[in-house]
């Protein structure tokens, strides 16, 4: 097939390309704000700069898992059972796993500098680790095979079970042990004191990463559509082949 070089190919559209440019620009701006313009923290010094990637990463991860849960619920309850919702759930969970991994690593680097240790057994860290493992399991179930509908129903139920599991784990770990600093922006007066520009950088980071998430989830969902469509194409051919088995 001759590809028309001027016409766009793949999963992009003019809208997503605009979004992509916006994402790249805002991420470059974020690194300038985070690494150059914003001041050092009075207590933590320059190590606070890790915050500008760590906090937005975990923000994206939470958002992604919430979106997975919502999409799964919509898939399971909607009358038409559109597989698009299932693909959104899968795309979102995959992105969530990536960002939870990023935030665990950057978080432990940050922890090494501020607490002197890579890991502490506090409620938030521990339940984040559980989140990571749980959604790795979710992605494994998505790959179990079978028809698209089987995959969608199984993983949809599993995503809703995870919504139940995570608060239970968090609650029990919290009662078990809690040493972690409270979320520093929500509760003033803890060890990070953010001035205006630092606060701006942080919120800018949240916005930039949210845009990044939107871009990623749209494209990932589209590649999943292509994968499903490819499998269905294979099905048409397989049905023809199956019919030709007759009388052989």
């Amino acid at each position: 097939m001759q590809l028309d070089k001027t016409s766009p190919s793949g999963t992009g559209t003019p809208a997503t390309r605009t979004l992509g440019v916006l994402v790249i620009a805002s991420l470059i701006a974020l690194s300038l704000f985070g690494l150059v313009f914003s001041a050092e923290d009075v207590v933590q010094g320059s190590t606070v700069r890790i915050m500008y990637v760590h906090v937005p990463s975990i923000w994206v991860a939470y958002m992604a898992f919430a979106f997975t849960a919502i999409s799964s619920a919509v898939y399971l309850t909607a009358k038409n059972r559109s597989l698009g919702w299932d693909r959104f759930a899968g795309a979102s969970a995959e992105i969530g796993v990536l960002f939870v991994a990023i935030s665990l690593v950057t978080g432990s680097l940050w922890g090494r500098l501020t607490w002197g240790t890579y890991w502490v057994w506090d409620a938030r860290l521990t339940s984040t680790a559980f989140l990571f493992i749980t959604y790795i399991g979710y992605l494994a179930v998505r790959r179990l095979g079978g028809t698209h509908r089987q995959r969608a129903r199984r993983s949809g139920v599993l995503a809703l079970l995870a919504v139940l599991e995570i608060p239970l784990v968090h609650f029990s770990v919290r009662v078990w042990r809690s040493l972690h600093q409270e979320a520093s922006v929500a509760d003033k007066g803890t060890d990070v004191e953010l001035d205006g520009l630092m606060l701006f950088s942080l919120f800018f980071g949240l916005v930039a990463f949210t845009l990044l998430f939107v871009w990623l989830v749209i494209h990932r969902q589209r590649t999943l559509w292509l994968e499903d469509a490819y499998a269905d194409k294979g099905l048409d051919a397989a049905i023809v082949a199956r019919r030709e088995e007759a009388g052989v």
Partner: protein
Amino acid sequence: MEHASFIIGSWVLTAVSVVVYAVFIVKRGRSLSQNASREEFPWT
């Protein structure tokens, strides 16, 4: 900058993993879309 290796390391790690993942998605989308005609895509 104090602890530059940790800080730069965090940023580089984040950037690299996001870029690798984004490139993977785009490449996979391009190669898979060879198998379907553009009129079928729900997004075009």
